[in-house]
């Protein structure tokens, strides 16, 4: 049945967003993935965002798909169509459709009258009835109901059915019975929609050639692949959402690529530790003994690891920490995304510490930065943090195909070999800056008696001896500090995009990239030119400060309450505080272009100087005047 309300929107091709509301544990993930993959194979840039609860079965979950020919696939909150499969969230789902849009619902049961909206169209498909009539067994019926709505959506949005069928065939190649069931389900939905609705909708899809050299992958899988390619052999971890899938993927890749062909034994060790403290300790022990070792965690785990992080920093043990950020503080919202650990990672642990942190924006960078992290860790003999987040780590992104240069060899940094130690004329001293670059030579256990030294987190002098004396202690700590400062120029440079006539700078970090680049385009359409910079590492690369200095006002756009990137920029560059205006969204969903535009609203209205509460320009334009709204609603 169709209840048509409001005016039909103007035709729009390859620029739409829709959302499917289901109950977790009902197998909707594979159906939703099928949709996203089919659109990808039609050559249309597409993203899929899974908004899932911290729960195993029975709570609401949503999958959002955005297809956009211009490549703007950041999250949007304007949905042309919502598939409302979960009665518990009908009201919320119906409310989220843009005016003139559509709601598809299971018309086996009547839609509650109070949910009617007079500006959208309701498309009823009797999904439950169709599956009950055609399939046996409750589990199969539940699963096939999902495939039915895929079929209906294919008709409504003009998704290529040959591609959908091809994908089903690939998935169920070895299970003929399941394949037949899926074929039937997909046809049931498709035929019903064709028969009952005016298909396709004016907002629809059309094949294009936007994805020729692209793949779809999540950041955790890409990062895990990077670890395999970098030659990491020891992983120690403790399960925590949203980082678990990184080690899961690493495990799977190791079983695929790292088995000794003759003995079937493992060229890797993956240790599920008793907690994150132990995981960090194992990584540090393994790295100290010469392996490339890493851990993967999220903010809560990083808090536990901070004791060991200080040790690795001070004792100069190369180690790699992936922090797939989730919403904090404390347990926070485990299945929601945030950039809340920027400041913590930068200075984790007590005493004077400062760490190298790199910030991937997407799975492509997760792969590349994973490899780079191991090189940096060994070159600078220090812990390296790769700060991804739940959105990057667990959602599917379309990225350019990953490339690998077979001539790559790990940069193991300054490690003395047995031969070098044998030939050395003087004694070896672990913390002596013999080359004047702040990076001493290190040795590995088991190699040569002349390389021996005692690694310690207690006060030590440049010769590696215990000390409680002022000067020898300060000498080493100052040198370690210099080492990290000097590393800045060797870290990933910021991504900078300049535009003719730009007056303002938009500065961002990590996964906000898509939303901010979309905002740059949206601003240009309104006649406002903005330069763009995405910071990719801390300590800040030498290119960061000149960009800030070149703009009277820079908007620092990030996903946390306190403007952590802005704080770091103020603390660690010469930029003037008033020139850095904060735009923040921290509600737990991936950032959308409209968050950026809302944050810029007062600037665009020329009202920056007239903040109603007199907090001055940097707060006025920051969006912080309405933090409750920002934080409370997705």
């Amino acid at each position, binding site marked *: 049945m169709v209840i048509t309300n409001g005016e039909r929107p103007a035709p729009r091709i390859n620029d739409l967003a829709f959302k499917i509301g289901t109950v977790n544990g009902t197998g909707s993930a594979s159906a939703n993935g099928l949709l996203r993959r089919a659109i990808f194979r039609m050559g249309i840039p597409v993203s899929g965002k899974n908004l899932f609860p911290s729960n195993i079965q029975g709570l609401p979950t949503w999958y959002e798909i955005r297809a956009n020919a211009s490549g703007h696939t950041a999250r949007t909150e304007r949905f042309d169509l919502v598939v409302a499969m979960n009665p518990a969230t009908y009201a919320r789902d119906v409310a989220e459709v843009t005016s003139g849009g559509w709601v598809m619902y299971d018309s086996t049961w009547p839609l509650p009258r109070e949910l009617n909206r007079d500006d959208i169209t309701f498309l009823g498909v009797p999904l439950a009835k169709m599956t009950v009539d055609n399939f046996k067994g409750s589990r199969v019926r539940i699963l096939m109901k999902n495939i039915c709505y895929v079929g209906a959506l294919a008709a409504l949005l003009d998704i290529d059915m040959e591609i959908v069928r091809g994908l089903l065939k690939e998935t169920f190649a070895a299970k003929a019975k399941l394949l037949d069931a899926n074929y039937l389900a997909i046809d049931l939905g498709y035929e019903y929609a064709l028969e009952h609705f005016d298909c396709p909708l004016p907002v629809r899809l059309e094949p294009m050639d936007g994805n020729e050299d692209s793949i779809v992958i999540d950041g955790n899988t890409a990062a895990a692949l990077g670890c395999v390619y970098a030659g990491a*052999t*020891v992983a120690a971890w403790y399960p925590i959402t949203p980082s678990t899938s990184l080690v899961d993927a690493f495990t799977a890749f190791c079983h695929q690529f790292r088995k000794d062909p003759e003995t079937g034994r*493992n060229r890797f060790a993956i240790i599920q530790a008793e907690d994150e403290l132990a995981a960090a300790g194992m990584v540090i022990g393994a790295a100290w*003994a*010469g*392996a490339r070792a890493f851990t993967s965690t999220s903010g809560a785990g990083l808090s536990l690891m901070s*004791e060991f992080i200080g040790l690795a920093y001070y004792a100069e043990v190369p180690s790699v920490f992936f922090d797939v950020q989730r919403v904090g503080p404390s347990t926070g919202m485990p299945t929601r995304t945030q950039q809340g650990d920027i400041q913590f990672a930068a200075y984790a642990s007590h005493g004077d510490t400062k760490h190298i942190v790199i910030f991937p924006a997407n799975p492509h960078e997760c792969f590349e930065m994973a490899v780079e992290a191991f090189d940096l860790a060994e070159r600078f003999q220090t812990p390296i943090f790769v700060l991804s987040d739940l959105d990057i780590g667990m959602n599917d992104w379309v990225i350019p195909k990953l490339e690998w240069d077979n001539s790559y060899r790990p940069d193991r940094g300054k490690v003395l070999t047995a031969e070098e130690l044998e030939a050395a004329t003087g004694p070896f001293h672990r913390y002596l800056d013999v080359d004047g670059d702040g990076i001493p030579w290190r040795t590995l*256990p088991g190699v040569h008696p002349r390389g*021996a030294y005692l690694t310690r*987190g207690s006060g030590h002098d440049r010769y590696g001896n215990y000390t409680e004396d002022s000067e020898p202690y300060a000498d080493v700590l100052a040198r370690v500090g210099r080492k990290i400062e000097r590393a800045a120029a060797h870290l990933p440079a910021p991504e900078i995009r300049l535009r003719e006539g730009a007056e303002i700078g938009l500065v961002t970090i990590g996964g906000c990239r898509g939303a901010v680049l979309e905002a740059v385009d949206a601003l240009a359409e309104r006649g406002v030119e903005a330069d763009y910079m995405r910071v990719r590492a801390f300590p800040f690369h030498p290119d960061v400060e000149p960009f800030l200095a070149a703009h009277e006002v820079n908007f620092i756009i990030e996903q946390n309450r306190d403007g952590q990137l802005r704080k770091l920029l103020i603390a660690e560059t010469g930029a003037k505080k008033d020139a850095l205006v904060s735009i923040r969204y921290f509600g737990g969903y991936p950032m959308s272009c409209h968050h950026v535009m809302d944050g810029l609203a007062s600037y665009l209205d020329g009202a920056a100087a007239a903040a109603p509460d007199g907090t001055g320009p940097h707060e006025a334009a920051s969006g912080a005047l309405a933090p409750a709204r920002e934080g409370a609603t997705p």
Partner: protein
Amino acid sequence: MSYIKKPRIHHPALTRNRLGLTRRDYEGTMSTLCAGCGHDSITAAIIEAFWELEIAPHEVAKTSGIGCSGKTPTYFLKEAHGFNGVHGRMPSITTGAHAANRELVCIGVSGDGDSLSIGMGQFAHVVRRNVDMLYIIENNGVYGLTKGQFSASADVGSTAKRGQVNREHPIDSVLLSLNLGAGFVARSFSGDKEQLVPILKAGLRHRGFALIDVISPCVTFNDHRGSTKSYQYTRDNYNQLVYADFVPPAQEIATSIEVGDARSVRMHDGSHITFRKVPEDYDPTDRDQVYGYIRERQRAGEVATGLLYVEPAPQDATDAVDFHGLQGTVDEPLANYPFEDLCPGADALEKLQKRFR
């Protein structure tokens, strides 16, 4: 006597082992612990054990946590890499080092505070994981560096130096590790080098996790009347339950004949532990019985010592359930593995990505 520097030149007549090394070559720097500290006696026993086993010092990784015990790796094997990490976390660092390089001979020195309070979690899990290491707890029942607080191994009723009485139940590392499945469990006394050295040697040769809890009196904070970890108390209530000898592979036959009907337990590397004297109803390979027996001796007020429990090695080495056996790791240390055999390369990546279309 920390102000004294050790002489660099030694008497030429010092006995050399087959590596040509004297006991001096197995020493470290001068101890900075209190004169008479039990830990120093343990250090001396460690030096003796390594020298006798003829292990090249640089093949050893020595690790520790925080506290007086944490300082001791500096005092032995100066030609070995050492890692004095953070409090209670020695097990995880050792696990990582062993994961990366299985050829390292790992020895971890911890204390009762380090292992049974702050590091209880890591201690339990390193046992479970059966990491191939010798784990020594230098057990004095007290926190020395912070001046005399009770530790978790202090017995109910024992008194602190200033007279406070401990009323909380102790954690006994021997009973605990028996419970957790440790394959080698011993208790000894720093004042009994004759007993300690063979146990250390056997522990170093045991494949998998080996625990030696050594009562090691703190002369400054816990050696008074009322303490149950004092020299006097330990000597008065000492029960050398089990006499064990460590017999390296080469001497196997001769020694076996000498000991006659003594029980002999084979180890992974072909060496044996022979038990010279055990109580009649005591089987050191029966975990449940050992547990019960120790409990019984404790109720009688005795400190049962010796190599109390050992799991015989499986006949087939591939059945080993130590860390690397469980992991299924290759024989070559992961740390030395050629990069070419670790990186799948460009073609594999190209092929793999078809999955992501």
